[in-house]
């Protein structure tokens, strides 16, 4: 095993000091490798190196059936596993013109919004951890564990659920699903104020994140940023509003758009989005329509020839699944347009000539998931 070339430090030109915020680093939440050119504490230039977790999911999916490759997607952005499976299921349903029963649609939205809550909670915990405050991490996991237990009872696994399949959902809701979700929402509505007390209101956190890492609106559009990162810079790009799917058009929830564009606004957008998700769950939890939870789908799925594109709003932005099908049971080409790939592009422009402390603050509020970038 020889050491890859990037890890051997370049000879430092005088005055410049290149450090590897290497593949194994606590604040990169995974294996992102940034080579940063420093001048003292100030960052001159950032060059991301990817591929440390590139598993070739697109190449694997070319030799797996549709139903089998869908479950691989929850290994990409593991904090929005439901949304990834939902994107592929919607695409297959659009291809085969399958009509999903209403109960399945309601269950899907409930699961997706619970997953968004769980993902934002983990983001909030790890954002606090990156800034040095250790306690928020444990408060964030208090509600997240309850959500994972709800998932466990219905879908069978905690993190990489293989629950949303073409035609509906894998199995029906657990009997006390409604009771537990209601208890969770009631408790979290109270506890979200603790989030404000611990981090949002904290003067040290505000000083660390305000006016740090500005992402102007036109740069965000030109970079293709999406999700809370883009909405904090004033772009309204919530796919649940623009191209509603699975019954989102019937629900009333507001899209959070703020336009200051610094790290603190990205933080506030996500906190508000958690409240919106709870609002959606409140509307749906009491009137889940009856009926069967899954439409009849043939064993082997063959999409008619042509190109399909399906967009879904995950916790981090717009996930697009682009399939070129030539009619037989495996897709000819699958391309996953993942939100973190474009949000990573923003990192090089935002973090220029800021300090190392700011780099950690910016990466905490960009909320990057590395397997989503490398696929």
């Amino acid at each position, binding site marked *: *095993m020889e050491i890859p070339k990037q890890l051997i430090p370049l000879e430092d030109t005088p005055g410049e000091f290149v450090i590897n915020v290497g593949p194994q680093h606590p604040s990169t939440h995974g294996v992102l490798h940034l080579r940063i050119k420093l001048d003292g504490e100030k960052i001159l230039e950032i060059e991301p190196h990817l591929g440390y977790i590139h598993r070739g999911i697109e190449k694997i999916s070319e030799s797996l059936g549709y139903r089998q490759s869908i479950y691989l997607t929850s290994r990409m952005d593991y904090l929005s596993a439901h949304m990834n499976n939902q994107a592929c299921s919607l695409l297959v349903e659009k291809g085969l013109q399958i009509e999903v029963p209403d109960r399945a649609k309601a269950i899907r939205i409930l699961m997706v919004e619970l997953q968004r809550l769980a993902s934002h909670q983990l983001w909030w915990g790890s954002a606090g951890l990156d800034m040095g405050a250790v306690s928020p991490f444990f408060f964030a996991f208090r509600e997240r564990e309850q959500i994972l237990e709800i998932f466990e009872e219905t879908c069978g696994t905690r993190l990489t659920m293989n629950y949303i399949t073409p035609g509906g959902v894998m199995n029906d809701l657990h009997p006390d699903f409604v009771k537990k979700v209601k208890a969770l929402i009631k408790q979290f509505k109270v506890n979200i104020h603790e989030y404000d007390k611990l981090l949002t209101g904290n003067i040290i956190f505000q000083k660390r994140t305000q006016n740090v890492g500005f992402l102007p609106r036109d740069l965000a559009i030109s970079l293709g940023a999406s999700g809370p990162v883009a909405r904090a810079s004033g772009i309204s790009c919530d796919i649940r509003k623009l191209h509603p799917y699975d019954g989102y058009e019937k629900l009333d929830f507001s899209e959070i758009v703020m336009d200051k564009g610094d790290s603190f606004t990205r933080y506030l957008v996500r906190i508000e989005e958690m409240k919106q998700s709870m609002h959606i769950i409140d509307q749906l939890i009491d009137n889940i329509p009856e009926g069967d939870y899954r439409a009849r789908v043939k064993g082997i799925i063959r999409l008619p020839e042509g190109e399909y594109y399906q967009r879904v709003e995950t916790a981090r932005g717009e996930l697009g699944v682009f399939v070129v099908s030539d009619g037989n049971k495996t897709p000819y080409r699958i391309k996953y347009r993942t939100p973190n790939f474009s949000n990573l592009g923003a990192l090089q422009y935002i973090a220029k000539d800021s300090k190392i402390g700011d780099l950690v603050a910016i990466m905490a509020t960009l909320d990057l998931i590395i397997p989503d970038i490398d696929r």
Partner: protein
Amino acid sequence: MGVTEDNLNTFPGEVYRDDAGQANFFVTSIDKLANWARSNSLWPLTFGTSCCAIEMMSAASAKYDWSRFGFEVARATPRQADLIIVAGTICTKMAPVLKRLYNQMANPKYVIAMGSCTISGGPFYYYSYSVVKGVDTIIPVDVYIPGCPPRPEALLEGMMALQAKIKKSRAYVIDSPKTKQEE
């Protein structure tokens, strides 16, 4: 492998041979003390590549709380860590980095392979061109924890199995100072 004390005895006996390769005859009281200290303060390296790292984080969270075992001091540098939990897929580009991290760790060091991706390449065994098919092809592994991702309790059970293994093994006595071939 259940957790109760008795069925941990199925463990096949001594594991470590000391530097010169001889197996010590019996676990002396010094070894017992050293093994007690080592097994009760395993400091994991913060090393997580993908989904299993999230389950490792929830094992560290308040509900499962591995700080009861004394694991919560997660050191970021390989120098001070003595346990590396390989959590998540290891790709061919990541393999030399993992090998380098393993070499930088101070002896006695232990490895836990957590999740199907590390045990055998899991979902990426077939058809993938860039996944290492099993971490034990790169570094020696002490405990394998199957699951995708394994529950936090399964991770705790695996760590207790590692503790049992350390308690049963010879204390790793460095008698001949090794040449430090350091990357």
